[in-house]
C-alpha cells in the first residue's frame, strides 16, 4: 500500500517535471534559445581601412590615423548624466579646439566658439535619454582624448573605431582631393575631387566577427564563431608632384590677393602623358574641417567652373585654319583694316586698333586680333570649324578623373548663325572649362595628339599595383600644324605684353585671354575672366599650364594678371625640372 502510494507520488512528480520541461523546450524553446544566443554571442564590426591617396613619388597626400567614436549607453550609466557631462565636456572641448587650431581658414572666417558650459548642457541632455544603448557623443576623437576619457572610468561609455582622415600637407590640393564625410547610414563617404570620384575603390568593405563569449565576456575558443574579414580600400597613386603643387599654390594664392580676384585656378599638366602635375583652386576649403566652410568652396573650379574662354580659344581656331589648309601663318587677313561686319553686328578688336596691311595670321595671334580670327572662321566655314572643335572635344568633358567635371555649352552647328561663328572663333558665346582649354593647348605641345587628362596613374590592392589604362592620345591636328602653331604662340608671347616677364634664355609658347562675364543677357563691363595658357620650354615642353583669375579688380587683363603668375611659376619650374636655357 505504502509502496503504491510512493510510486504514485513519484509518477506525479515525474509527470509534472515532464510537463514543465515540455513547456520550456517545446512551447518556449525558440524564445529561450534566442535569449541564450544573445547572452553568449558577440558580434562586432571590423572596419575596413580607407585607401590612401599618394603623390607621384609615393609620399602620402591622404592617409588614416586612429580615431574613435565616443558613445554612451544610458542603460549602463552608473553616474548621474550631469556628473558624466561635467567630466566629459572639458576633454571634448579641448579636442574640438585642437582640431580647429590645425585648420587653414580664410582670414574672415569666424569659427563657432565652444563654451564648455554649453557643451556640458548638450551632453547632459543626451545622457538623460532613458533606455538608450547607443548615443553617439563625439566623432573621430584622437587617441589621446580617447585615453583621457577612458581614464575617467565612467561605466556606460564606450568607443567604436572611427578612423580619421589624415592630411599631412594640410589644405594643399584640397579641392582636388575632396573630403570624407558621412553617408545617410553614417558610413564614411567620399565627396568631391578624388575622394568622390574614387569612393568605390577607396572605401573597401567592412568585416564582421561573430563569436561566443563566456560569463566573463571573453571569447570561447571552440565556440560557434565565424569571421568575415574586412576588405581594405585600394590606395591610389596620383600624378601630382608635391613640389610643383606647392610652387603653383603659393603663387596662385599670392596672385588672388595681389590682383583682388574673386577666385583663381591653375593647372599644370605633363603634355606627353596627360598626367596632372598640380591643380589649384583658391580660395579653397580645408579637408580637415570641411564643415566650417561654405559649400561654394568644395568644387574644383578647374573642372567645374564653366566660363567663356575668350582669346585663349583663338589657338583652336588658328589650329583648325592651318590644319584644314584654309590659311598659313603668313596668310594676310583681308578684313583687318576695320571692324568686321557680320549680320549687322560690328566686331571690333580689344583695343580698337586695326591693321589694313601686313596682318598675317601670326600677327593676328600676337595682337590677339578678334577681327582676324572672326575673318578666319568665316573663311573656313562653320562645318570645318565645328568638326575641329568636336575633334578637340569642345562641348564634351575631358574625362579627367575628378568628381564634378562639367562639359560647358557648345552649340549645334545647325543652330550657328554667321555672327555666332564669328564670335565663337575668339572664344565668346559658349562656355568651357579650364581643363578643356589646357587639353587643347596640350595638344599643340604634344605634336597634335590630344592628351587624355588624368590624375590617377595606378591603384594598389593589398600590395599589388594595378596600373590604370590610359587611352592612347588621338591625333587631331597634323604634327606640322602643331609645330607651326607653336612658333606662332612663341611669337604671341615674345611680341606681346608678356615678353618682359619671360625668363631670359627660355622660350615660352602661350596665349592670353580676357573674357567678359555675361550677366543677365549682356556682358558686364567691369567683370572679366583673365587667363593665360601656355607651355615651356617651347622646343621640348615639360609642362603645359593654365592660370585663370575670375574678376580681378586691380586690372582686368590676362596679360597683366595671369601672365605674371604664369611666368613666376615657370621660373621656379625650370629650376625644379632642371631645364637649361635654349638661347644664350
Amino acid at each position: 500500500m505504502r509502496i503504491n502510494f510512493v510510486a504514485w507520488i513519484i509518477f506525479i512528480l515525474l509527470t509534472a517535471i515532464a510537463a514543465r520541461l515540455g513547456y520550456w523546450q517545446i512551447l518556449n524553446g525558440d524564445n529561450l534559445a534566442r535569449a541564450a544566443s544573445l547572452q553568449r554571442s558577440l558580434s562586432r564590426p571590423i572596419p575596413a581601412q580607407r585607401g590612401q591617396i599618394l603623390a607621384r613619388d609615393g609620399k602620402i597626400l591622404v592617409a588614416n590615423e586612429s580615431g574613435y567614436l565616443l558613445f554612451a549607453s544610458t542603460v549602463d550609466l552608473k553616474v548621474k548624466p550631469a556628473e558624466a557631462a561635467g567630466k566629459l565636456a572639458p576633454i571634448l572641448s579641448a579636442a574640438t579646439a585642437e582640431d580647429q587650431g590645425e585648420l587653414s581658414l580664410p582670414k574672415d572666417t569666424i569659427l563657432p566658439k565652444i563654451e564648455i558650459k554649453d557643451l556640458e548642457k548638450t551632453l547632459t541632455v543626451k545622457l538623460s535619454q532613458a533606455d538608450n544603448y547607443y548615443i553617439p557623443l563625439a566623432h573621430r576623437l584622437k587617441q589621446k582624448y580617447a585615453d583621457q576619457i577612458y581614464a575617467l572610468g565612467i561605466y556606460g561609455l564606450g568607443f567604436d573605431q572611427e578612423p580619421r582622415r589624415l592630411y599631412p600637407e594640410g589644405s594643399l590640393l584640397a579641392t582636388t582631393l575632396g573630403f570624407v564625410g558621412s553617408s545617410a547610414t553614417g558610413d564614411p563617404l567620399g565627396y568631391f575631387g578624388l575622394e568622390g570620384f574614387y569612393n568605390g575603390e577607396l572605401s573597401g568593405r567592412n568585416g564582421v566577427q561573430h563569436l561566443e563569449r563566456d560569463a566573463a565576456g571573453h571569447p570561447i575558443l571552440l565556440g560557434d564563431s565565424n569571421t568575415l574579414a574586412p576588405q581594405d580600400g585600394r590606395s591610389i597613386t596620383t600624378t601630382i608632384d608635391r613640389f610643383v603643387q606647392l610652387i603653383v599654390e603659393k603663387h596662385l594664392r599670392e596672385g588672388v590677393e595681389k590682383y583682388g580676384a574673386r577666385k583663381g585656378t591653375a593647372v599644370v599638366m605633363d603634355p606627353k602623358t596627360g598626367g596632372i602635375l598640380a591643380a589649384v583652386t583658391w580660395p579653397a576649403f580645408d579637408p580637415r574641417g570641411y564643415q566650417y566652410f561654405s559649400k561654394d568652396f568644395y568644387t574644383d573650379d578647374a573642372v567645374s567652373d564653366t566660363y567663356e574662354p575668350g582669346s585663349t580659344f583663338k589657338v583652336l581656331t588658328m589650329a583648325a585654319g592651318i590644319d584644314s589648309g584654309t590659311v598659313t601663318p603668313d596668310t594676310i587677313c583681308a578684313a583687318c583694316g576695320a571692324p568686321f561686319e557680320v549680320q549687322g553686328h560690328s566686331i571690333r578688336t580689344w583695343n580698337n586698333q586695326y591693321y589694313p596691311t601686313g596682318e598675317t595670321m601670326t600677327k593676328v595671334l600676337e595682337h590677339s586680333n578678334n577681327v582676324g580670327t572672326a575673318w578666319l572662321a568665316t573663311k573656313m566655314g562653320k562645318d570645318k570649324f565645328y568638326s575641329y572643335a568636336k575633334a578637340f572635344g569642345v562641348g564634351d568633358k575631358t574625362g579627367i578623373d575628378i568628381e564634378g567635371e562639367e562639359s560647358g555649352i557648345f552649340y549645334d552647328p545647325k543652330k550657328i548663325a554667321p555672327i555666332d561663328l564669328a564670335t565663337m572663333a575668339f572664344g565668346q558665346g559658349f562656355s568651357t572649362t579650364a581643363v578643356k582649354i589646357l587639353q587643347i593647348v596640350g595638344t599643340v605641345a604634344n605634336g597634335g595628339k590630344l592628351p587624355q587628362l588624368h590624375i590617377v596613374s595606378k591603384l594598389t590592392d593589398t600590395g599589388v599595383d594595378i596600373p590604370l589604362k590610359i587611352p592612347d592620345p588621338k591625333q587631331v591636328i597634323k604634327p606640322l600644324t602643331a609645330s607651326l602653331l607653336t612658333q606662332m604662340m612663341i611669337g604671341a608671347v615674345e611680341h606681346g605684353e608678356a615678353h618682359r616677364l619671360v625668363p631670359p634664355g627660355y622660350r615660352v609658347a602661350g596665349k592670353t585671354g580676357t573674357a567678359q562675364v555675361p550677366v543677365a543677357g549682356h556682358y558686364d563691363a567691369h567683370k572679366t575672366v583673365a587667363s593665360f595658357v601656355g607651355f615651356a620650354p617651347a622646343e621640348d615642353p615639360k609642362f603645359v599650364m593654365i592660370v585663370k583669375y575670375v574678376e580681378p579688380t586691380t586690372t582686368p587683363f590676362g596679360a597683366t594678371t595671369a601672365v605674371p603668375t604664369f611666368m613666376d611659376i615657370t621660373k621656379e619650374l625650370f629650376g625644379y625640372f632642371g631645364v637649361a636655357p635654349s638661347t644664350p
Partner: protein
Amino acid sequence: MTARKHHLHRLHHTAPTGRVSESRTLRRLASGVVILTIGLAAISLVTANNLATQGKASQDLDQQISSVQSENNSLTAENAQLTAVTKIYAQALAAGFVSPKKLQNLTRIPVVALLNP
C-alpha cells in the same frame, strides 16, 4: 545421503559467498562510477579552464594586433607629417632660406667626355 548432505553443505556454503561477491562488485562499480565522474569532472574543469585561458589569450592577441595596427597608423602619420613638403618649406623659411632671385644653368659635361678624358 552422503551426496545429499554434501549438496546441502554446498548450498549452505555457496549462498553467503555469492552475496559477498555481488556486494563487492556493486561496491567496485560504484567506486568506478564515482572515480569516472570525478575524472570526467576534472577533465571538464581542466578543458574549460584551458578554453577560458586560451579565449582570453586570443582576446589579448586581438587587442595586441589592434594596438600594433594603431601604432603603425600613428607612425605612418608621424612620418607623413614630418616629410610633408609644406612643413619642410615652412621650416626652410624659418631657417632663413630664400628663393633664388636668379638661376644660372651650367652646361653639363657630356657623359662621353667623362668616359674618354
